[in-house]
């Protein structure tokens, strides 16, 4: 495979493609609401009309507005239909020529679409994720070619460092710095790992990216491998994502067949093999040291850092671990240059962030917004407020490691530092909107229950602390708590934050602490009348 062959594939693809195309969302969400049946019916109708040669029905990845799915898009016109049912197939097909169509039109001028800035999601809902040719047709793997042939590993790292990209898994560690550390750490072999063990309740960013554009992640990983000097990569993806796993497997096979992964990529001396490792459902395996233990075939438990994986990771070798979304940013940065990327976002948080917008919100779905956008814009403009108009009370970001941000603080810009300053975190991108009917003690209790069930049990503060905290919150909820129980809750939160071994335990108290900070009265209301012992 060389550049000419790559371009030939792209040209052939363009040439063979019928002018009219119907793109059916076939990501997990729309599939669950019957998208595959819609696709089948569309094909049947087209076939009956003898139009299968002129109109192509293509399964694509996530179009973003999941709450209004299943979604169908007409190309090149660009119309999007929402809440499509199989019964709408005939109407859609006949409208291809005659229009207009009575099927629900999706308003593409709505801020949900106009306020977004897709970089990571730029191919999502546009290409068939199961065909590498579709990816190549939109320019795929050219960046990898350019990197291998025109840039040194140091130059690649330089570009990533200059772009200001930070880890999208939640902690926001500078990606360029991480790559540089792995590159300079001595080791017989090095590894690149893509962390796709997305586990936060309400988060589905990584799943959507993998289901919609797996090659973008593979290309990003290959570039990273070239930069740090790794020849083996692993994608650690949770077992609960069967569709993502299936599409990744197909993508790897296709890329290997074309010589875009494997030995001597683009006829260079660069080799990079990628294998999938499927997680067995432990949330803690999203923590990098636990993830490494799991790939090594051991019990998925974290170990204290340092040493960091960049120095001693998989089998003791320098290992680069980045999140799906981080890898998905790489090609765009190299294509457009670091300066382009730096213009997007805020001073310390560059680029965009993908969020899974869920909860009491009209426009549930996947969004990609520039860093620095306010929560208000996301909730009221992109999300369009609550479905029944009930006032919004708070937004929870960062999953079980994050916090609840009250509506008064919705002018907070979405960037790593600002979210941390109000007691939450950027996190991997879960964003759960809550309305006035939500009890914040219940919210805190929900997340603590999650952490209690997901604690690996290795360190005492997390293993037992989560249970005690959960029991105390339950006691509170049942009106059996005394004022001193609130003190015990706060003490436990501090203990867990300061002494737990890994991020799970250290951040588990965040949902409690942030709701205590902004909604303390809801806790105090639940405290039972103290019995007067008259001592």
């Amino acid at each position: 495979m060389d550049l000419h062959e790559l371009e030939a594939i792209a040209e052939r693809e363009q040439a063979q493609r019928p002018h009219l195309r119907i793109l059916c969302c076939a990501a997990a969400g729309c599939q669950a609401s019957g998208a595959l049946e819609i696709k089948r019916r569309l094909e049947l109708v087209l076939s009956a009309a003898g139009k299968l040669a002129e109109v192509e029905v293509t399964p694509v990845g996530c179009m973003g507005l999941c709450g209004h799915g299943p979604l169908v898009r007409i190309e090149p016109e660009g119309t999007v239909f929402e809440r499509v049912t199989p019964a709408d197939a005939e109407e859609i097909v006949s409208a291809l020529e005659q229009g207009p169509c009575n099927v629900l039109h999706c308003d593409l001028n709505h801020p949900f679409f106009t306020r977004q800035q897709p970089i990571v999601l730029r191919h999502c809902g546009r290409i068939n994720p199961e065909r590498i040719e579709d990816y190549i047709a939109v320019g795929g793997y050219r960046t990898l070619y350019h990197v291998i042939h025109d840039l040194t590993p140091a130059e690649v790292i330089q570009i990533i460092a200059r772009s200001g990209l930070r880890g999208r898994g939640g902690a926001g560690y500078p990606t360029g710095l991480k790559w540089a550390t792995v590159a300079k750490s001595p080791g017989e072999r090095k590894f690149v790992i893509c962390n796709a063990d997305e586990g936060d309740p309400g988060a589905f960013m990584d799943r959507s990216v993998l289901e919609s554009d797996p090659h973008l992640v593979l290309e990003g990983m290959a570039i990273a491998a070239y930069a740090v000097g790794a020849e083996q990569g692993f994608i650690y993806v949770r077992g609960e994502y069967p569709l993502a796993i299936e599409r990744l497997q197909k993508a790897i096979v296709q890329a290997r067949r074309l010589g875009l992964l494997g030995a001597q990529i683009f006829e260079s001396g660069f080799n990079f093999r990628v294998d999938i490792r499927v997680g067995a459902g432990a949330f803690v395996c999203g923590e990098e040291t636990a993830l490494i233990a799991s790939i090594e075939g051991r019990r998925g438990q974290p170990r204290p850092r340092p040493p960091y994986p960049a120095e001693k990771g998989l089998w003791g070798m320098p290992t680069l671990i980045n999140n799906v979304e981080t890898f998905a940013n790489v090609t765009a940065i190299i294509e457009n240059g670091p300066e382009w990327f730096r213009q997007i976002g805020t001073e310390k948080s560059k680029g965009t962030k993908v969020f899974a917008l869920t909860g009491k919100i009209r426009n549930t779905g996947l969004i990609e917004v520039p860093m620095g956008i306010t929560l208000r814009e996301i909730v009221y403009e992109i999300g369009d407020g609550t479905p029944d108009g009930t006032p919004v009370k708070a937004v929870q970001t960062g999953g079980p490691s994050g916090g609840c941000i009250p509506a008064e603080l919705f002018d907070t810009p979405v960037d790593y530092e600002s979210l941390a300053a109000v007691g939450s975190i950027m996190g991997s991108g879960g964003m759960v909107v809550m309305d006035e009917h939500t009890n914040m003690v219940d919210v805190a209790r929900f997340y603590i229950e999650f952490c209690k069930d997901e604690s690996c049990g290795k360190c005492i503060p997390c293993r037992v602390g989560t249970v005690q905290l959960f029991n105390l919150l339950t006691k509170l909820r049942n009106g059996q708590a005394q004022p001193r129980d609130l003190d015990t809750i706060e003490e436990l939160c501090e203990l867990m934050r300061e002494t737990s071994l890994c991020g799970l335990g250290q951040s588990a108290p965040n949902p409690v602490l942030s709701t205590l900070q902004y909604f303390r009265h809801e806790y105090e209301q639940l405290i039972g009348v103290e019995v007067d012992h008259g001592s």
Partner: protein
Amino acid sequence: MSRLRIATIWLGGCSGCHMSFLDLDEWLIELAARADLVYSPIADAKHFPAEVDLTLIEGAIASDEHRELAKTARRQSKCIVSFGDCAVTGNVTALRNPLGPARNVLQQVYVEHSDPRGVIPHEPGIIPLLLDKVVPVHQVIPVDYYLSGCPPSASRIRALLEALLEGREPLVDIRYG
């Protein structure tokens, strides 16, 4: 100096702590010179009196009667000591907790493991009702001092009492079991 009013109560425990108290031997005579024992399993008093200076509570809270007596003791005492492991941790008395609520325990003891098959006693007002979970004393009332041990040795009891009698902060070593 007026004489101190001391009480001891015996809740869910084996009375071993009281036995250990009696092991204080001749020091009991010194104690008697400075204090009155106003309520105790080894004293003749029907009701827990008012204005007690110091109450030692042996045993865990295992029944409604224990809970009420502990509350009375707290209301009517200046200082409460959790006396021995059962009072401090639940200890042997709490061994039944993993078996589940009281009815499970009663069923096992009086029906399943009794020969011939018995019935669960039920005499409201006469036989105290078991609580579903045995808890240490400090989970029911605020406790001022804790004396661990099963039982606490006479010397450790003495160290605690001497300090309290002299108005010092007691510094007794911690020793469970």
